[in-house]
């Protein structure tokens, strides 16, 4: 009796592991997926995460990145991964420069990010997409600097990511930059006179934006009537903050946060019949695709984001269509940033004349020279294109968006 139980248990375990091992190894073998044609017919849907869009030529640049592919922040990591995958497929199909992409999970944790980075290093990563989120980005960028592996992060927006590292570049605005731009925008467009801020006081991203927003608001003569904070664990009930805002007579609430708490704030404000203007930042992007969120609540919400999925231009349209076909939802700015990152690499590698047989360090040295000189016309920059200065910071202008009937419309 007992023996058979043990046996069945062992068999079940072996089966499970065998099944999953099968999954894993098919990912790694790489030939499971030949580069898709640029037209992108609906490919095998549900390609496992961590999948490598490998080129078969064997002469490809090994491009690695870490991001939260599981856990609470996974929407950002997966978006970036998917965006980069689409770009890699397109570029590989064009011929010329070939990429082999691999994303590793960091669960939005600095310790795991370093582990993921080291895994990629063992794999032979030559150029890096850094990390998707800020704190992991800070941790891995130190190793990028030490190991001389060039990094261009799609969305790790904290200034500490690029500070003092000559080979780490950003595709997104820095947090302070966003706070300043938001305050400027609100002041210039005269969107509100009495401003309330609700921010998350245990979050780097939220705090970074809030600090410069407050400073800039002061110089611009905006009146901040109330500041409410919340943290992990008490991020579901915002009635106190909203009531206080209402009492203080705020006519605009600034929400420097990711969209999950923002969605709750919107619905709770609606429930209490309080309708100020809401102004968000790029973390708000994604709110429209949130499961179970009534998009009517977001009507009239304004946000600054570098990417607009509804833009009319051909590049954006083709990207959005492909993304929807492949992954079933509308890409957010994380996907667009990652997509642009891969194209920026293509441009820079071509300009620098790098070849895949060069070592990471050789490529790194060339890219450091080349990056400040290139101008990329990507999805996330407007007409002027995207440029970098030698510190690694990006220069592109944010777009003001407002949500109307469930879609972003340029302001």
């Amino acid at each position: 009796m007992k023996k058979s139980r043990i046996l069945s248990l062992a068999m079940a375990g072996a089966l499970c592991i065998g099944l999953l091992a099968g999954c894993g190894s098919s990912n790694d073998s790489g030939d499971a997926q030949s580069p898709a044609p640029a037209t992108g017919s609906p490919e095998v849907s549900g390609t496992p995460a961590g999948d490598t869009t490998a080129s078969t030529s064997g002469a490809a640049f090994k491009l690695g990145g870490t991001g939260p592919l599981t856990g609470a922040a996974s929407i950002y990591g997966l978006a970036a991964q998917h965006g980069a995958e689409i770009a890699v497929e397109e570029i590989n199909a064009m011929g010329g420069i070939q990429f082999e992409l691999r994303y590793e999970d960091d669960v939005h944790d600095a310790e795991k990010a370093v582990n993921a980075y080291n895994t990629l290093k063992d794999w032979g990563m030559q150029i890096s997409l850094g990390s998707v989120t800020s704190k992991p980005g800070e941790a891995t960028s130190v190793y990028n600097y030490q190991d001389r592996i060039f990094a261009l992060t799609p969305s790790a927006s904290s200034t500490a990511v690029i500070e003092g590292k000559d080979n780490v570049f950003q595709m997104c605005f820095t947090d302070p930059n966003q706070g300043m731009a938001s305050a400027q925008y609100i002041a210039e467009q005269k969107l509100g006179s009495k401003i309330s801020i609700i921010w998350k006081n245990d979050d780097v991203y939220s705090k970074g934006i809030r600090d410069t927003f407050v400073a800039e608001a002061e110089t611009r003569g905006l009146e901040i009537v109330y500041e409410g904070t919340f943290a992990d664990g008490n991020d579901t009930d915002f009635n106190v903050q909203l009531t206080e805002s209402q009492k203080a007579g705020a006519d605009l609430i600034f929400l420097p946060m990711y969209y999950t708490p923002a969605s709750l704030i919107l619905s709770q404000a609606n429930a209490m019949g309080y309708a100020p203007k809401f102004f968000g930042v790029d973390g708000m992007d994604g709110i429209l695709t949130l499961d179970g969120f009534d998009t009517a609540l977001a009507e009239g919400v304004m946000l600054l984001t570098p990417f607009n999925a509804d833009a009319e231009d051909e590049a954006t349209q083709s990207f959005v269509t492909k993304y929807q076909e492949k992954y079933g939802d509308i890409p957010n700015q994380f996907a667009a940033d990652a997509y642009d990152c891969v194209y920026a690499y293509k441009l820079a590698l071509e300009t620098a004349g790098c070849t895949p047989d060069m070592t990471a360090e050789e490529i790194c040295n060339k890219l450091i020279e080349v990056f400040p000189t290139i101008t990329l016309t990507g999805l996330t920059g407007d007409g002027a294109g995207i440029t970098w200065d030698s510190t690694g910071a990006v220069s592109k202008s944010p777009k003001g968006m407002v949500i109307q009937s469930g879609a972003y419309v340029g302001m």
Partner: protein
Amino acid sequence: MKALNKTSRSNFLTYAGVIIVFVVLQAVMAGGGLSSMLKGQLVPICAYVVMAVSLNLTVGVLGELSLGHAGFMSVGAFSGVVAAVSLQDAIPFVPLRLGLAMVVGAIIAGVAGFLIGIPVLRLKGDYLAIVTLAFGEIIKSIINNLYVGLDGRGLHFSFLSDTLELEEGGRTVIGGPMGVSGNMPISTFTAGFILVLITLFVVFNLVNSRSGRAIMAVRDNRIAAESVGINITKYKLMAFVTSAALAGAAGTLFAMNYSTVVANKFDFNTSILILVFVVLGGLGNMWGSIIAAAALTILPEALRQFSEYRMLVYAIVLILVMLATNNPQLRAFFAGIGAKLRGRRGKDSQGEGEASHE
């Protein structure tokens, strides 16, 4: 006499095991045979081993459940980083600076443990579990609102909002929710290894001392211990504070291995993870804790090829291990092997087997 021989022999085996592993790893590393993934994990593993062994002192030896061990790690991590940054100019010699930072981390975490322990350890029942759980959350909250800066005039502190007003050239060491940024990683595997050895030395010596026997007496029967005149609160505090101080040193080691640390890293989940190391390794069983901590730290990384099923496989492996180690037939099997070995070695060396498990 025989009992003493048995414990000290198994203690020496543990020391020897740790040293052998260290030497082998160093040799492999020198030969370049170690992947960057493993190399990068050596320091965190040492930190987790120390955490597990120190928690084992509270849970296994003292018999009190602590659910906030990561809180002490956090206290040690942040105070250690502040110490290391403050000493940066005074002590250019890195290992000494790291050592001093660990001592500071250990002392401050020990003080925190003492303060918590005074009221709580006087109580009967599971109060320590509840209070340590709250302690971990409070520490997280406090550090998320704490700002520490360093400039020419010395250290500055502010709470809730950043009002440090540093001089030119000053730097923010702890920036509230930003935690520590731009830290210079100075932890090394050697430092971690030495900390593990010190921890084992402290724990073994405490457990095998007069005080240690008093602590275990309190665990086994509180009333009986009290009736023979053992000061219960004193011995409970002794074990608890030692455990907290060691966790503080581990926290410093961990924090100084990364350029950035945030308070949210040391949350309830981390406390539970360490408790899992202890339970899996066996309560009161130090080498079990060491192996469990090392194995469970490497395992999620080794499972990366399963991509998104990684944590699922991790859970399955955990369950299988739990089932397997608790299976009477497997135990009998291992006991049989143990008996055979013992038989071969002779009668004297009885009992470095599974007995210590429970």
